[in-house]
């Protein structure tokens, strides 16, 4: 037995042939697209468990614990209301400014949180990537789910705010469901895209806060972009209104608030833009991430 260990039992075969003969596969090969989707599906329980775990883990050391899922969006809304509603007085031109503002903050906050968590989804889990073999897209996807769960808490807060500010319950509220679905597909794609970019460009983490803040100010969260771009040429205004976040926010306002100021686009064309963005970002993000599957964990 001992001698057999030392001498190569198949001296005539090259290692690659030997491997092929016994059906061994090359380690760290990139799977085909269909196979990749299938393995991701097989890992769905892991993705959800990991998302839940992160959600719980972030607040275990806080005394108020899981209550912060609701307190954070409320505090956020209060801060922006203080600045833009009370001090700067933006509210005078928009009816029900509180609901208008909260729609913007919560909808934008969702994608923004996914984007910043997605950027570090690979780099902050390198230990796990180097220890376990699982489809890497699980990480950015579970980041998206974590934020989606927090979005549900903010949506409950938002509905309460909307009711308190005197909006009647309407059937139109139900359009939030397809809207949040489209936004989640968009955000998931964005998380995948940024996860790969963030693993290659390590400085992206430092740049993202500035990108996100610029995006926030450009998405008409605290003011009506349509009013602000009145004096611009039509093409410039149209371009600014194609911003996916603006479209998601405006559609949420259409659903929840009866007195929304008219937007640049009609509601139906905004739905088309939202669906287009979701499709493009979802597919592009996924393909881009999959193409890099082999390189994650290299450091």
């Amino acid at each position: 037995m001992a001698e057999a260990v030392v001498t190569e039992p198949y001296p005539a075969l090259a290692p690659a042939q030997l491997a092929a003969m016994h059906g061994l596969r090359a380690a760290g090969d990139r799977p085909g697209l269909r196979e990749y989707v299938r393995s991701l599906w097989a890992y769905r329980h892991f993705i959800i468990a990991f998302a839940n775990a992160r959600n719980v883990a972030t607040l275990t050391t806080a005394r108020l614990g899981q209550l912060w899922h609701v307190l954070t969006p409320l505090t956020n809304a209060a801060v922006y209301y203080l600045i833009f509603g009370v001090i700067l007085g933006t509210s005078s031109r928009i009816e029900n400014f509180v609901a208008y503002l909260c729609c913007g903050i919560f909808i934008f906050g969702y994608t923004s949180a996914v984007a910043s968590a997605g950027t570090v989804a690979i780099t902050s889990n390198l230990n796990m990537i180097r220890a376990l073999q699982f489809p890497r897209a699980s990480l950015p996807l579970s980041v998206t789910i974590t934020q989606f769960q927090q979005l549900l808490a903010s949506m409950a807060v938002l509905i309460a705010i909307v009711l308190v500010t005197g909006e009647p319950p309407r059937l139109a509220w139900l359009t939030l469901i397809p809207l949040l679905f489209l936004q989640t597909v968009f955000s998931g794609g964005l998380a995948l895209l940024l996860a790969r970019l963030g693993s290659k460009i390590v400085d992206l983490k430092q740049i993202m806060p500035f990108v996100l803040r610029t995006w926030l100010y450009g998405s008409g969260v605290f003011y009506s972009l349509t009013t602000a771009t009145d004096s611009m040429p039509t093409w410039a205004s149209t371009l600014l209104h194609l911003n996916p976040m603006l479209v998601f926010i405006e559609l949420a306002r259409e659903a929840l608030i009866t007195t929304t100021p008219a937007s640049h686009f009609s509601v139906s064309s905004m739905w088309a833009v939202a669906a287009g963005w979701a499709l493009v970002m979802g597919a592009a993000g996924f393909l881009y991430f999959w193409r890099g599957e082999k390189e994650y964990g290299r450091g």
Partner: protein
Amino acid sequence: MAETRIPTVVVDDVHIVYRVHGAAKDSSPLGALRRIASRGPSATVREVHAVKGVSFTAHEGEAVGLIGTNGSGKSTLLRAIAGLLPATKGAVYTKGQPSLLGVNAAMMADLSGERNVVLGCLAMGMPKGEVRAKTQEIIDFSGINERGDFSSLPMRTYSSGMGARLRFSIAAAKKHEVLLIDEALATGDAKFRKRSEDRVRELRAGAGTVFLVSHSLSSVRDTCDRTIWLESGVIRMDGPTDEVLAAYEEFSTAK
């Protein structure tokens, strides 16, 4: 006899060069600027040639020890076999998906041990039903509940030995065709070491191949029948454990 031996891992002339970020010699802001200005090859990145042309074949039912001094490329080679660190040159062929079990495998420190068990099993690709059935078994095997109900406490409260035991127990719960163990047996107390050595033997009996990286020569001697000695990324010796360990001990004491 040779015909009956089925290879599970074939390593063919593997070279691994990995890149280290944030390893610049001059770490001041001015230094960073200077590197960008001079367009030096990859500013803050340095390359380490950790494994230099290693080839071997491991077979079903074998337990292979990997020994060598610190920084000789043992852990890097293990990661390459697991497919976690792509080889720069050469190729690694494996049967099934090898699992790497390291003492620094990631766990979520803020979560309870029990939740980490569930998460770890799911990450290994275990079906949900099986995870539920095995959770208690894993916790019992790890023995972390021997001194009170530790499995419901966050993992950050565990001692390093307890954490390592739980990690080993999770990885060992699944039947692996190829199991790679990095120093895990060196942690834990004598009682747990005995138990984990038994488990490794069991896994081997299940027609798997086990690789063990360890500085503890006694655990290599107890579990492995073949040993590969790596030195500076090159195989120095590959053969029956007794012979290789004897040569290695001679080498170590001579230094």
